[in-house]
């Protein structure tokens, strides 16, 4: 017992004595610097890795999912408008309209399978997604029933089409809108995660640098040598690491901010595209209802107003030529629509249908198609810009983690080597 206590006391005295002696202090400083540089290196690497992971989620999941959601929404709205046009055109529907409808359904199903693949990530979407995947086949079934009846000349075909359209408008489109809203919000959230200011990285790097400088000053006082080569090398490594991380992070921050603008631009254009389709659907249904379609005409006016607002909003960002043209084609469509309504009000129903569906230059169909094409082009460009921005941000971070780890090891090694030089003098 006694012997043990004495031995312990001896150990304590040796350690404290060592700590009071210069070589002991030097060893302690070396030890602290090793721990600090490795710890700072590890924490910085984790922070950088987290930012990089947010970008990866954004590029590989959120953004493609938002696009898939947008495609689901768009293709469903398009299918609805197309089915109404096909009905209005009378007779057996034209091959073009049929192809367009089939393409819409194929697109909606494919985009939906992409969106549904990530169901566990957004559990709040499970209702919307199961509505979409459950009701889309029901919708197509109703449309085909309507088609079979139309082929036999049965007016009940029109009732099936109305039922299909009601299903689309009351259940599928709201679910698609919800899906689109959530996925778009996720993109913004991931951009915010990736674009957080690098406070932690800056703080850690600065602290380590301060520790290195203090160690240098301590040595200067003790040894009367201004510089210690090892510590200088360690400081350089630390500064390089800090700058590397800060520059890369700030590039990401700036890209993320640009990405948020880009995502907003994509959102505005996507909503404009969908508003175009909704307005067209209402324009068709006004004619289909033949005199009792005031409700559809009112909705057309509402959606057109919304569309106008969205196009103006898209024009506020540096407008591309496609967006400018979209504005012109919107005006053309409005004029054509006014002519359609005028003819219909005057009782010239056949003329009105001709104006709405025909392929002559002043017709509503032509302006609608052109407006759609403009928006598709503008949307494609905006999305490409957004993905480029995200890719750029990911590029800025590539290699940052290994560099941080390497430089942290280098800092630890160099500072130890520098202090070892001094320690050797006490042997």
């Amino acid at each position, binding site marked *: 017992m006694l012997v043990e206590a004495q031995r312990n006391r001896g150990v304590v005295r040796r350690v404290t004595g060592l700590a009071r002696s210069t070589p002991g202090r030097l060893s302690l400083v070396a030890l602290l610097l090793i721990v600090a540089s490795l710890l700072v290196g590890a924490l910085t690497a984790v922070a950088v890795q987290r930012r990089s992971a947010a970008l990866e989620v954004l590029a590989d999941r959120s953004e493609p999912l938002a696009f898939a959601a947008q495609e689901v929404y768009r293709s469903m709205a398009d299918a609805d408008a197309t089915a109404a046009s096909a009905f209005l055109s009378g007779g057996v529907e034209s091959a073009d309209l049929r192809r367009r409808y089939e393409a819409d359904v194929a697109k909606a199903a494919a985009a939906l399978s992409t969106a549904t693949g990530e169901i566990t990530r957004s559990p709040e979407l499970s*209702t919307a997604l199961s509505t979409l995947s459950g009701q889309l086949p*029901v919708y197509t079934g109703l449309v085909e029933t309507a088609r079979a009846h139309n082929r036999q000349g049965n*007016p009940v075909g*029109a009732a*099936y089409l109305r*039922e*299909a359209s009601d299903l689309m408008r009351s259940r599928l489109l709201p679910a698609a809108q919800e899906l689109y809203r959530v996925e778009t919000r996720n993109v913004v959230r991931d951009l915010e995660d990736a674009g957080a200011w690098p406070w932690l990285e800056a703080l850690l790097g600065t602290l380590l640098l301060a520790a290195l400088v203090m160690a240098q000053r301590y040595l200067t006082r003790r040894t009367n040598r201004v510089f210690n080569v090892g510590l200088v090398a360690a400081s350089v490594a630390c500064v390089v690491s800090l700058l590397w991380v800060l520059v890369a992070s700030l590039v990401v921050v700036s890209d993320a901010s640009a990405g948020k603008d880009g995502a907003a631009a994509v959102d505005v254009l996507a909503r404009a595209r969908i508003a175009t389709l909704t307005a067209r659907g209402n324009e068709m249904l006004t004619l289909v209802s033949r*005199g*009792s379609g005031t409700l559809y005409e009112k909705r057309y006016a509402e959606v057109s107003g919304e569309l106008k607002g969205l196009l103006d909003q898209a024009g506020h960002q540096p407008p591309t030529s496609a967006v400018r043209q979209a504005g012109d084609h919107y005006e053309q469509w409005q004029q054509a629509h006014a002519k359609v309504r005028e003819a219909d009000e005057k009782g010239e129903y056949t003329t009105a249908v001709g104006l709405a569906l025909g392929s002559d230059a002043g017709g509503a169909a032509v302006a609608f198609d052109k407006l759609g094409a403009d928006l598709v082009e503008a949307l494609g460009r905006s999305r490409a810009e957004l993905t480029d921005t995200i890719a750029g941000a990911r590029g800025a971070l590539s290699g940052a983690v290994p560099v941080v780890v390497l430089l942290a090891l280098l800092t630890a090694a160099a500072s130890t080597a520098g202090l070892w030089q001094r320690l050797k003098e006490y042997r």
Partner: protein
Amino acid sequence: MTGRRSGGVIAFAAVLALVTGCAPVPSGAPGIGGGSVVPPRPADVTESVVPSGTAAGPESCDATASLRPVGLPPAGQMPDGSRMKVIQDRGRLIVGVDQNTYLMGFRNPFSGELEGFDVDMAREVARAVFGDPTRIQFKVLTSEARIPALEDRQVDIVVRTMTVNCERWQKVSFSTIYYQAGQRVLVPSTSDVTGIESLGGRRVCATKGSSSLANVADAPSEPIAVSVPNWTDCLVMLQQGQVDAISTDDTILAGFAAQDPYTKIVGPPFTAEPYGMAFPKQDEDFVRFVNALLERLRADGTWASIHRRWLGTPPAPPVAAYRD
């Protein structure tokens, strides 16, 4: 290996198994859903309509009696100051019709044109005013929208399987009877229903604002009335198994039976549904004009030929009755 060490290993393994086994971590994945099927339905379906009191009960007036005609001016020469003159100056007759009632007023899916018995009758009115049956603008009306459309003067005349009754006479004027229908019941061909009396507690479809709906809601057998905006929506619901029967005028039911061979019309007509053309209440001169026209159509065989075109071999046309 000694016995003690192997015993220790076993004990350690047991503890490990206990520790790892006692905290199950379930999957966080949501279920696959799809458990609750929501079948599609036509828009705007209402169930269990309270009896509206518009059913054909004991009539408080002689509903089928209309205003006596006073001669038929030649086409294109309507007397000044008359309603017909206003229409002639406008250049077209605005008629409220249906596009969902096969054989009476329906949209031909191939041509997109409106056709049927009612539509041809309306064209005869246009022919009488202008000498040209194409000077006509159709406005499609649901059953419910007929009287409001007349009151707001959105249409000059409604020719849309509209039953003449005293309650409606309060708001609009009717021509003499141009078709005599009666309410019956349409069921799937496998059904055991024999008429309105065996529909107690079953779901029966009719359109909103129609006299058929009121008759169903007031039927003594107490069926559950289901109402929809358009007549074809009833056929959709029957085909989708959402109603057990459709009950309305035999003309409309004949149109359904023609579209679906797996249905049958059962039971005798249990109400009389005389159809008249409806006008805004104050347009008495136009009513007398059209009554004169109807007299001529009955007499010269036009009525019979229109009937033959849509509804088969014509019976004797309904006899006109006048109140003054």
